């Protein structure tokens, strides 16, 4: 295909919080970190569902989707998101999960197709690096 002739397109990230709980302070912090790294963050905010996230990823032609979940449902919810993206023909969009994920669950999530897991203590630099890494590594 043609290379971008008019300056490269910034990475586009859809950022959402799945489920009913909580606040979006952490999500907003991540949004600012990614913006400050030159990315375009499509911010969905709280109380999103699998359907609203998939719609946004599709319409926004996102390169990656970041989903925060804080109610320990990650082992069931994350694979659901991955499956919904695949079903919509968006299986090449990597999923990054943020939230309190026990170390022993990380492997299982990655096996389920999650590109990266970002825990509470992750530095801004690491957040940006994780997102860049999964976008660079995406497959058709």
């Amino acid at each position: 295909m043609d290379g971008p002739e008019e300056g490269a397109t910034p990475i586009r990230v859809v950022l959402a919080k799945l489920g009913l709980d909580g606040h979006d302070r952490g999500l907003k912090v991540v949004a600012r970190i990614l913006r400050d790294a030159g990315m375009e963050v499509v911010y969905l905010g709280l109380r999103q569902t699998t359907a609203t996230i998939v719609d946004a990823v599709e319409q926004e032609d996102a390169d990656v989707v970041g989903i925060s979940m804080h109610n320990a449902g990650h082992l069931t919810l994350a694979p659901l998101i991955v499956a919904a993206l695949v079903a919509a023909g968006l299986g090449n969009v990597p999923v990054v999960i943020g939230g309190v994920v026990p170390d022993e669950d990380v492997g299982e999530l990655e096996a389920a197709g999650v590109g990266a897991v970002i825990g509470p203590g992750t530095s801004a630099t690491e957040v940006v690096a994780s997102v860049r890494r999964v976008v660079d590594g995406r497959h058709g």
Partner: protein
Amino acid sequence: MAGTGEERKPAELLAAARGGQRRAVARLLTLVERGGGAAEAIAAATHPLTGAAHIVGITGAPGTGKSTLTGALTTLLAAEGRRPAVVAVDPSSPLTGGAILGDRVRMEAATGAGVFIRSMATRGHAGGLALAVPGVVRVLDACGFDPVLVETVGVGQIEVDVAAAADTAVVVVTPGWGDAIQANKAGLLEVADLFVVNKADRPGASDARRDLDLMLDLSEVSGAAAGTGADAESRPAIIETTATEGEGVQDLLRAVDAHHRALKAGPGLQARRDRRFVAEVRARLEHVLIQAADDVLVDVDSRSGATPVEAARHLADRFLDTDTPR
């Protein structure tokens, strides 16, 4: 982002997009936004397929409720069986080029109703928005979306111009003195086909309406004096809404449709499309000329003894007289 295995050609994407595949629509929009060869191919392919969509601009100061209103309006449109699309534009950070595009937060019901929503950042390059938005609207029009609503923050000249380039330009203000006055200063008053006083649940909505009425009276007087009455259309309606409650949104929809019908009944619609065509050509031309200027500027010698004015004249002669660079 480039680099995925399943990269499809613009023609192939357009066929899929017109067949209803939203992923293909979204991909086309990305290519158009990026500019360059693929964007030109898409413009050529979509241009003959356009003209059916009613293009509605929604602008106003930050926080006036444009996104909430756009969400409510398009939810209603979808419920009527129409196929609305939204282009929501927000500024990029001039420092990092990044952006937080938060308009979808206020359009949740619309997403649920199947409205196609695309968030767009202004991106750094000068006039980039004036180049990208017409192309994005063209794709949506060619893919059968109607109406196409374009939300911009009405602070910068380019953003105001983008909204003003619509068939119907809606200017949103809120109760309180400042807003109507601000709208006047930002040049929003002249571009409005319709006014919305949103947040009518707050005190001062009728005052805002009165201020707008007064300002419209004044501009009618000065407009008549200046002889600009030739293409004068009917005086903009003022609609009060409470977007968060859906209050008045039905009235707004009727007013938007009525404006479109009035345009169609006369020469107005064609006049606006002609104007839009010229505006886009102008934006493209400026883009080409600025690039050409950047190319010749490397030859400028500050110690040649010429004044800046002479140097500019000399360079301008050079590329206005020779064959147009391509």
